[in-house]
Each structure stands twice: as C-alpha cells, then as structure tokens.
C-alpha cells in the first residue's frame, strides 16, 4: 500500500442507529452502552458503530461478520440506501452525505453499482432488459444500451440467454445477470451484499472465481460483504471483521489468520488451513550466518502453499526477497508446521 493515492471510498466515524433514539444517541453518554442495554433503554439498535476504513483504488475490500453484525446496513449507508446517522463517506474525496437527491441519483447511475443477495431482478423484463436497466434509466439510447448489455452478457458467460426471463434461469445464472447489470453502467465502485449466500456451495465457488476473473479483467474497486470466512479470504485484498456494528479487526487475509485480534476472530479463523492463506512473510525468520543462501527465492507475499514444491526439492532454506533485498529465510520445518496448522512455526 502506498499512502499517496486518494482512497476510492473513505469512511470516517460512521454510525447508523435504528429507532426513536437515532439522533439523540450519538455523542451522548449512552452511546457506549451495549446493544442489549440500548435496545432496552432506548428501543433502538446501533447497527453500525463508529466505523472507519479506506478502500484503495482497484482493490477488493471485504466486510465479514455473522448475520446481524451490521454489514448490510453498512454497505447501504455507503450508497445512502439507508441514511447514515452520522459520519463521513467520501467517494474520491467527494462527501456523499452532502449530495442532494439529484446528485445522489447521478452517483448511483454512474459511479456505484450494487449486487444483491436476492438478485433483485425485474421478473417482467427479459435478461437483456434487466442488464440494460441502469443504462435505460439514465437515458442512454436503445442501440447503445443493448450493445453494452450484450457485451456484459458475454462477459458473464450468458450469451444466448438475452431473451429469457429471470425465472427461467437457475440461481447462479440469475446472479450472473445481477453482476452484468452492475457492470453495465461501468461504475467506479461495485458493492456486493452477500451475493452468493443464496447459492449452492459448488455454484458459489464458480461465482467467486467469476468475480476474481472479472476483477482481473475490468479492475473495478469492489466492496464485498460476506458471512463466509473462506470467501472473504479468497476474494479480499483487505478484510474487515464486524461484530455488533463494530469493526473488530482490519487487515490483509493473512493478518487475520496469522494474528487474530480477539477470540471472536480467532474462532472464525481456527479451521482455516493456514498454508493456504499465510504468506512466507508470516513464517520467515532472520537469516543466520550458517544458512546456505543460495536456495530458491520467493517474494514475501507468496502463499506458503505455493512454496511447498520448491522447499521439498531442496534442503536449503527458501530465501524471502523483496526488491532484491533479503528479508529472511524459511526452513522446511516452518513450512511443515504451517501446513500442520501449528501456532507459531
């Protein structure tokens, strides 16, 4: 990460409270109360509590948490589908909370788009018209929008289904339509609210790969909500973990797996195969004078699993090199320990 680029999305001190106490609570002494106490005393729910984070251009930013932790509320606050109670949301430096209705629509039509858990397709329109919906309401003419929609249709692998109606497609295909619809407006940021939770595991895996591929091809900034840790680790460049409206940890996937901030996170990551997530940086040690420093060379971001072959082929330690600089070395012992899931190799 370099600190010089403006984040695509920047969130500072965001709150969302549901209920009668919405505007009384923030800043008052009671804002520190637990959810249960708030519900009892003020009949209000704090769904998002003082959340801050930055999403860098081009990255996949994942928000993970159990159901009810406030993820959907958070992502809807970002596009103001839900009006935040307090806080700042910047899109490329522009304060979205200050946008009036017209500006907000403009942002939604051109800069954001969203993919929903339950697809939200229009059952009375054909697939092609669903994909073109965003273009249609912003006033693009028919040839333009059909051309674009057709392009998106091929991009998500649904050629030949243009004239179908959504209920003639399987769940996975419907969500591809949802994806294509979101991509069609060529947004700057795409928001995903648990897009694959309603799908079968196998199809879910396909769709995750699809998102990775699309991300690779179109390079959009993505904010992705999920309750599935494996999905978060697989897709996320950065992951934040939410609980009761709070961010309990933020970092790269391997940070979460390597150093869970608390028991809540530790619980999540316990069963994750560490060698699939942790990078060499996490298991390397300082090079000692007696190390043979002519073994295979890898960058520090390499996932352990990838280095297994090389490590097996030699008895020299693997050198972890960044920009020509030797950061440390990794022995076979450390790799084996990571594969076995042992703490601190």
């Amino acid at each position: 990460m370099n600190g010089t680029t403006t984040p695509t999305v920047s969130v500072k001190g965001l709150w969302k409270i549901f209920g009668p106490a919405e505007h009384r609570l923030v800043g008052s002494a009671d804002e520190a109360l637990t959810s249960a106490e708030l519900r009892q005393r003020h009949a209000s729910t704090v769904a998002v509590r003082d959340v801050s984070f930055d999403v860098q251009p081009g990255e996949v930013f994942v928000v993970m948490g159990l159901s009810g932790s406030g993820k959907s509320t958070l992502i809807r606050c970002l596009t103001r589908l839900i009006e935040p109670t307090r806080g700042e949301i910047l899109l490329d430096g522009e304060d979205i909370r200050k946008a009036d209705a017209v500006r907000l629509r403009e942002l939604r039509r051109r800069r954001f788009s969203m993919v929903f858990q339950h697809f939200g397709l229009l059952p009375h329109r054909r697939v092609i018209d669903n994909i073109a919906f965003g273009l249609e309401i912003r006033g693009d003419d028919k040839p333009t929008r059909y051309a674009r929609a057709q392009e998106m249709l091929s991009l998500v692998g649904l050629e030949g289904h243009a004239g179908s109606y959504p209920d003639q497609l399987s769940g996975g295909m419907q969500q591809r339509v949802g994806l294509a619809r979101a991509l069609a407006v060529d947004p700057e940021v795409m928001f995903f609210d648990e897009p694959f939770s309603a799908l079968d595991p196998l199809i879910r895996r396909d769709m995750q790969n699809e998102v990775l591929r699309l991300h690779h091809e179109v390079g959009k900034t993505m904010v992705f909500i999920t309750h599935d840790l494996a999905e978060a680790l697989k897709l996320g460049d950065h992951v934040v973990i939410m609980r009761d409206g709070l961010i309990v940890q933020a970092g790269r996937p391997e940070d979460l797996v390597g150093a869970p901030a608390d028991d809540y996170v530790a619980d999540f990551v316990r069963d994750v195969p560490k060698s699939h997530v942790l990078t060499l940086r996490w298991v390397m040690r300082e090079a000692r004078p007696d190390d043979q420093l002519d073994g295979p060379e890898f960058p520090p971001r390499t996932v352990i699993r990838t280095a297994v072959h090389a490590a097996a082929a030699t008895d020299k330690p693997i050198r972890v090199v960044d920009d020509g600089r030797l950061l440390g070395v990794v022995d076979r012992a450390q790799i084996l320990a990571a594969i076995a899931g042992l703490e601190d190799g």
Partner: protein
Amino acid sequence: MAAPALPLASLEWRTSRRFWGVALLIVSAILFVALRNQWLLPHDDDAEFFKSLNGLRDWVDANRSSNLVFVLVVNTIRLSIAGLFDLLQGILIGLTWPGVTVLAGAIGLIFAGRRMAVVMVAGFLAFGLLGLWESSLDTLALTLGAVVLSLAMGIPLGILAGRSDRFQSVITPVLDVMQIMPTFAYLAPMALIFLIGPPAAIIATLIYAIPPAIRITALGIRGVSGTSVEAAVSLGSTRWQVLRKVQLPMAKRTIVLGVNQTIMMALSMVVITALIAAPGLGLDIVQALERVNVGVAFDAGLAIVIMAILLDRLATRASQRVDVRTRSGAAESTRQRRVVVLGAVGVTVVAVIVGQLVAGDGTFPDALRITFREPVNTATAWVEANLFGLTNALKNAVTGVLLNPLQTILTTSPWWLVGLVAVVAAFIVSGLRPAIVTAVCLLGLIGLQLWQHGMETLASVLVGTAITLLVGLTLGVLSARHDRFAAVLRPILDAAQTMPSFVYLLPAIALFSATRFTAIVAAVIYAAPPVIRLVEDGIRGVPATVVEAATAAGSTPRQLLWKVQLPMARRSLLLAANQGIVLVLAMVVVGGLVGAGALGYDVIAGFAQREDFGKGLAAGVSIVLLGVMLDRITQGAGGRPTGPGRPVAVVPPGTTIQAGVTGA
C-alpha cells in the same frame, strides 16, 4: 442504425399484440366512417319476441296451480320460505321493540363484548327514532332468512368442495357465473317463478350470498395443512373424524370470514329485492327515489348503513373472539361466560315482558322521532341552487366528451362491425375462448332484440370503468407510496366496502339528479374502493429487494413507479380492471332507478308494468351476457405471462376475502 443483432425471437407477442391492436383500430375506424348508420338494429319496445316472453309469463301464471312441477316443487319451496320469513318476522314483532333492542344488546355482549352491546342498542334505537322500525325489522328478517339458508346449504357444499377435487371443479364455474351475474339480472326470473314478495327476495338473495359461503369454506378446508390431515389419517381416523376433529376446527377462522361476507352480501341484496316487492328499507328508498325525495331516501339509507355497520362489526368482533378463545383455551372463563349469558337472557326476558305491557302493539313510540328529511332536502336544494354550475359542467363534460361520442359510435356502427371489433379485441387481449364467448354473448344480445339498449349500457359501463380505473389507479398509487395517506384512506375504504350498493345512489342523485351520468357516478363510487385496494396491494406487494435494486441503480420515483412497480403489479392491476368493470356494470344497471335508461331501466319497467315483463326478462338476460362477456375479456388478460412459463395465479373473482362485497 447501429442496433446490434439480438438473439431474440423474431417478433415478440407483446409487440405483435400492440401491432394488431393498432391495426384493428385503424381498420375499424375506416369501416365506421364508410358504413356508419347502415346495418343498424334499432330498438323496438314492442318486438314480437318480448310478447312471446309475456306469453311465457301468462303460461306460468295459468299453470301455477295445476302443473305438477309447480305444485310439488316450486310452490313447496315458496311456501316453506314464506313460512320461514313469517316466522322470523313474527318472532321479531312478538319480542316488541324493547325486547328486540335489549336482545340485540345481549347478542352483542355475548359474542363481542361490552362495547358492542352498547353499539347494538344504540343502533336499534336509531331504527326506531328514524321512524323505520318496521322496515328495519323486515330487512333484518329477510337478511336472517337468507343467511340461514345460505349457510345451511353453503357450508356443507363448501366442505364437499374442499374435500373433493371433482366437486370443486364442477362447482367453480357455476360460482364464477353466479358471482359476475349482476343482481338485477335474476330478479325477473325469480319473480316469474316464485311470484314477487319475500320468498322470491330470499331466494334471489340466497343465490347472491351463497358463493362466498361455499368458496371460503372450501378455501378453509383446503388450507388445512396436508401434514395435519396425514397425521390424523395415520392414527386411523375415519374421514368423518378427520373432518370433525382436524379440518373443521382448523378451518374455523376462515369459515367465520365466509359467514361474515355472506351476511354482508345478503344485506346488500335484500335491499335491492325491494324491486320485486320485498318489504323493508330498500322499498322505502325505491319509493323515495321514485318521488325524487332525497331526504326520505336518506333516512332509509342511513338505517341501512347503520344495519350494515352493526352486522359487520358484530361478525368481525365475534370472529376475532373465536380466535382468541380457541387460542387461550380459556377454561375458567367458561363459567364467567355462562354468567354473562344467563344475565343477558334474563334481562332480555324482562325487556320482552315490559315491552308487552307497555308497547302493546310492539311499535316504536311515535313521540320519539329524529329525521334528516328536511335538512337533507334543504342541502340538496342548496346544492342544486349553488353548485348547479359546477355539477352541471362536470356532468356535461363527461357526457359530452366521453359518453355521447362513445354511445354514438356503438349505436351507429354496423352491428357486425362492433361485434367484429369486440371479438378480435377479446382474441388479442385474452385468446380464443374469450373471443368465442364474446361472439356468443353478442349474438345473444341480438337474439334478445336488445342490441341497441345493450350498446347504450355498454357505453355507460366503459365510461364508468375508465373513470373508476383512473380514480383507482391514482388513489391506489398514492396510498401505496404514502403511508400517511393510506392510513387516512383505509378506514374510508373499509366503510365504503361494507355499504350495500343501493346507498351509493343517494349522493349521486343528490348531486346530479336523474341522468345517465348519475348512474355512472354511483358506479364509480361503488367500484372504486376495491380497485384502489387492489392497486395498493399490488404495488406494495412488489418485493422490497427489487425496489431497492432499482433505487440503487439510480431510479427516480417516477421511473420506479413506471418501470418497476406498475409492471410488477400487473396481475393486481388486471384483476382490478376486471373487478372494476364487473362492479361498474352491476351498478350502472341499478342506475336504471336514477335515470340511466337502457337495459337497467328495461328491467325495472318489467317489474312495474305487466306488458313490459317480456322486455324486462330479456334485459335481465342481456345484462348477464354483457357481464360474462366483459368478465371473460378482462380476466383472460391477466393470464398472459410476465415471463413465459410462469404459473398463472388463479384468483377467481370474489375470493379476495378482504376485497369485501362484490357485485351489486
């Protein structure tokens, strides 16, 4: 054009439907201009056919006491129902007015609690104070008689339909036809067979009120979960035990709803049977309307409204109680209830005895009177004097811009051109079968020698439907989008839907005096509430996820409405159109009483003058034909896919439980 080649089927049916629709319009417009005023079927009041129907009446009259069928079947039925009515009426009179009033309160107390008891007593006192005690009791006796018979036949039939698919499939089309049949239509045959008076009135009411009893009972029985029935069967229950111990108790709530609706529909119809000389409040209204005395009609209308409210509240509260009681299984409250019941019976007996002693002949004391006759007549006169410009302008605008041109087109086109347009339109909108039905109905109209009157009525119905849909869409959309507006509108709609249709004639005639337009106004007031409801429900029924997705894509509220909510509410909107057109027809013909002319007036004239009987009977049948035709054309439209292959929701008209009273 740089339009990309789309892998779409060549011409979509939706587009092609529009194409054929436009083509039909153009071709028929050309034919109309070229051939107008030829191939007409002008009306003839003295058509031979009407006379032969008079002959039929004469034959029936002559053979009433000699023909075996009449002696054994018809007369037996007539006499037993007359007996039932006399019995109910006799009981009510015998109880005397204090007795009846206190009994009403007691029933309210036992079935619906203390507040209802007070409301009941107040309501019955109001009947007396308005000087309408006898009329009210007559109406009540007729309603009770019809309800008792409807339930005694309807619930068993409903159970049967709920348990047997075969029976269900036989009875459903019959009920469909019964429900779209405008009430006006079968008064004449009833009068022919059973003579005018209470028995014919009760039978006509029975026909009108029994469908919901059957339908909703069947719905309730079918709604009982398959697993419950399976569990009972697996324990070795007989069919009878399954019915008594599982299906009936579990369907009770739904069946009570059916009872409620049956009562309200019966009341609505009993009022209309005044046209075949049934006594009661309806007769008061008819006579007042004949003398164009709105004030007198108002008092009777008010009494009907009060009775409707009492019956509806009583039935609703009672059904809610059934619910609470079954759920809490209150064992210790049983004793408490027994005390209440005994007390109520005691007080009633005392009241009857007092009544017998004080009010010997059972009539309400003349000294106590409240009437709205003068104020209402004054108000009507004021409206006439001061709002005439406004009401007249409105009347003339609608009549001049919509009604007259449409009526002219329909009555001056060649008959086959109108028929052709209707049949092709039916085919385009709904398919082959509705097209055939349309053709048959129109040929029937010709055969009955009532083509011209049919076209005049049709013009009124179309204009009324257009206005109803406009009003219904506007208010329905508004209340779907603004909760506050909906909260204000809902109680008004609730009240409107419990009113017997006859009542709607009064404001219409007060504002617009007797014209075709008056009938259209009454029809709009009558048909708009269910249409508003259906529109609102349809729009609110659009899944939140879809609305959210469209909002997230940047839709304006208007785009949301036109591109998402209205198209997705299509089925509800089409159902609304269907209900709207059927209800408008029913009311437009009743509007014969307030100057609507055409078929509705033919029916009324048939009751009034002996020599017009045949024409009235034919007009009744014509109304049914129009009703069936309009219903089929609009009902089929809902069956077309929003996406092909989608299962069609089967919503028979009238099963919309909460849509309340349908038909007139």
